[in-house]
């Protein structure tokens, strides 16, 4: 009984010490809870490993029921340009205004780190989101259907081969505010010759 108490005490001290060290690290070595810092290599590796380990095998092993046809790719591209590009960029690089301020930054999804993931894993991230990151859940109450999410997976697989023409076409599908639409019209009219140069 005494041994059990000592063991409990040791665990409690270790947990408290670990928590204190983590808080010290956040305050002094990591600029508090600022999202401006980049995750360290250790933090990124640990988080990535834990995320993969936490993904249920039933989700990871799912295969895409949507064939990678031109129509599915196009629908996925349209959906991506409307919902995902604001953070991930049309080309999947993650080099966006919002992405630059996130912790962790959105990954470059053209690279093997993303492309090596199974269809089921990518589908799971789209449907359920990723906790403690900027990735929201698009499935369930958010309203996207599973079919739409699988088509997004088809498009994600195409990202490494995305052409400049496709990227340009996507720009026309990105969400715009009324002010941005007005500005675009003014610029288009100017280029056509209207107004004083």
């Amino acid at each position, binding site marked *: 009984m005494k041994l059990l108490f000592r063991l409990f005490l040791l665990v409690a001290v270790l947990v408290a010490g670990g928590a204190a060290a983590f808080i010290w690290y956040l305050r002094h070595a990591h600029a508090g809870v600022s999202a401006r810092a980049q995750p360290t290599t250790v933090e990124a590796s640990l988080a990535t490993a834990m995320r993969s380990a936490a993904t249920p095998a039933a989700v990871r092993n799912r295969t895409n029921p949507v064939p990678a046809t031109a129509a599915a790719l196009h629908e996925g591209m349209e959906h991506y340009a409307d919902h995902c590009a604001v953070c991930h960029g049309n080309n999947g690089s993650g080099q966006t*205004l919002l992405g630059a301020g996130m912790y962790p930054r959105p990954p470059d999804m053209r690279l093997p780190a993303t492309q090596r993931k199974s269809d089921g894993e990518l589908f799971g991230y789209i449907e359920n989101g990723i906790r403690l990151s900027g990735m929201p859940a698009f499935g369930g109450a958010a309203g996207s259907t599973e079919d739409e999410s699988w088509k997004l997976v088809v498009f994600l697989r195409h990202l490494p081969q995305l052409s400049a023409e496709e990227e*340009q076409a996507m720009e026309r599908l990105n969400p715009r505010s009324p002010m*941005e639409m007005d*500005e675009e019209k*003014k*610029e288009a009219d*100017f*280029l056509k010759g209207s107004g004083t*140069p």
Partner: protein
Amino acid sequence: MKRLLLSLALLSSTAIAFAHGGLTHVMGVVAAASATTLDVKTTDGKLATVALDPSTKWMKGTSSITEGDVHTGDRVVIHAKPVNGKLIAVEVAVGAAKH
């Protein structure tokens, strides 16, 4: 609120405006073109110098063009990235119409 509305009105009337994606839009006529910069006389009469970059995209309508296709007097709309007080062109759209 009045200050905000005034700022929005001024922003919409100027030829150099901030737009989505953190890019600045420059609208005007090419006053001078070199291999590294474009000088643009903006629609409000100011002169803006925009640096060019190997990754700068050049467009005329929906077609890609090259830097050599842009000449003095061309109407342009430039989407540029502000870096250390300088504007670096991300995309230069050239109009069909001449000045």
